[in-house]
């Protein structure tokens, strides 16, 4: 990674890999969602990220903020479920914080990801432990920040974030859902992974792969 920065093509590669992961695993995500939700998370995310990749392919962008505004708005209009406004807000805030630049260093990437997380919290009003995507995203960001603070570059930080997101996802299994459609199930939501946390783990897996 030249000069320890993340380039615009690498960010596009992140999105492409995320699209690939949710599309390959759409059936798995929908199975998770059929256990505790409305059985559409895989289809929604695959459709949304496919629309994102089509949009990016059709209208190349020159800066990070422009790229993620396009990504966020495309998700908002194409996903349908709560993941639309949630991932949409994540990417919109990511872009706004990153700004009109063409590359990000580790700290700037961390700040943009953190802004995205803050956006998800503001939009969904969930807390860690509510059995939502936040349960993968919050530990991922904590791991990312800790790596950067200890002098690691974006690649190492993303790798740590990916591992933490996967652990956070796995830790949602025993939780009782307190937000979203799954919360209607109460205690019966325990014993299943949260589909939003699962797709968020793919988001950080994709980032780690794109920066490897």
């Amino acid at each position, binding site marked *: 990674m030249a000069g320890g920065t993340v380039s615009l093509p690498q960010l596009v590669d992140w999105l492409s890999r995320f699209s690939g992961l949710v599309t390959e695993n759409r059936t798995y995500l929908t199975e998770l969602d059929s256990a505790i939700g409305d059985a559409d998370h895989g289809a*929604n995310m695959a*459709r949304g990220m496919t629309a994102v990749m089509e949009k990016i392919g059709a209208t190349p962008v020159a800066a990070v903020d422009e790229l993620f505004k396009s990504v966020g708005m495309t998700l908002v209009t194409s996903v*349908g*479920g*709560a993941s639309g406004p949630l991932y949409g807000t994540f990417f919109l805030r990511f872009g706004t914080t990153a700004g009109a630049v063409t590359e990000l260093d580790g700290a700037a990437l961390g700040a943009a990801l953190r802004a995205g997380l803050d956006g998800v919290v503001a939009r969904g009003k969930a807390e860690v432990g509510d059995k939502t995507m936040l349960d993968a995203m919050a530990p991922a960001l904590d791991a990312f920040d800790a790596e950067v603070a200890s002098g690691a570059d974006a690649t190492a930080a993303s790798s740590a974030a990916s591992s933490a997101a996967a652990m956070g996802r796995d830790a949602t299994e025993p939780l009782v859902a307190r937000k979203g459609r799954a919360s209607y199930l109460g205690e019966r939501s325990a014993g299943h992974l949260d589909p939003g946390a699962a797709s968020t783990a793919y988001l950080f897996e994709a980032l780690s792969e794109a920066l490897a």
Partner: protein
Amino acid sequence: MIGIVVVSHSPALASAAVDLALQMVAGEKPAIAIAAGAGEGVTGTDATKVAAAIDEVAGPDGVLVMMDLGSAVMSAEMALDFRASNAEVKLSSAPFVEGLLAAIVTAAGGASLDDVDREANAALVPKQGMLGSSEPGSTSEAPQVEAPHVEAEQTEELTILNPDGLHARPAATLVSALAGFDAKVTIANRRTAGKPVAGKSLIGLLSLGAKAGDVVTVAASGPQAAEALEKVRELVTSGFGEMGDEVSPFPDLRAQP
């Protein structure tokens, strides 16, 4: 008149709910815009559609947004970041079908955004009363439908003639009829001995639980008290135009001839 935005996962659900509510409105209707579904035939919601719907009906009196569930709420909140108009917008926490009915009828009567929002929020009170989960005529969950205390200048006792009682359609007719009068009208059900409710409140009227044969006490004050009372008498004694017709609990749901 305020504008109303209807947000639903399903275009079919939204348009059916709006149709159901509009059957209660005889005269001028509020501006209503539906934002339902996402993408091409996708069940879900889209914040940009909600924003466009808000802008479509935005006016000086404000906009009330009614939502079904889940992402509808999140999309409506996000739409507030996207909309171009700067009209006052409130997101209603009312139940979708009952709240929409209350909102549309109340808005059609020219009520303010705050009043329509309060009326919609109280929309479950009549159903709770009917099912015994709260005392009929009691307005403890919804003090807003309770009539403000006014010194009644004129009162009259009238017997409800409609076989189905003061149900949604006649109640909506009464709300619309009273909207034009500069008068405060309250109505109480003597049988239940509940508190008087505002005559301009659909939810208040429905919460009376007034059945055929019940005697209601109508009190009116204000500059047009006499005219308002006369209008109420005319409507109640004529069975709100339902008498002599084939009687059904939901007469408006039949195909119109």
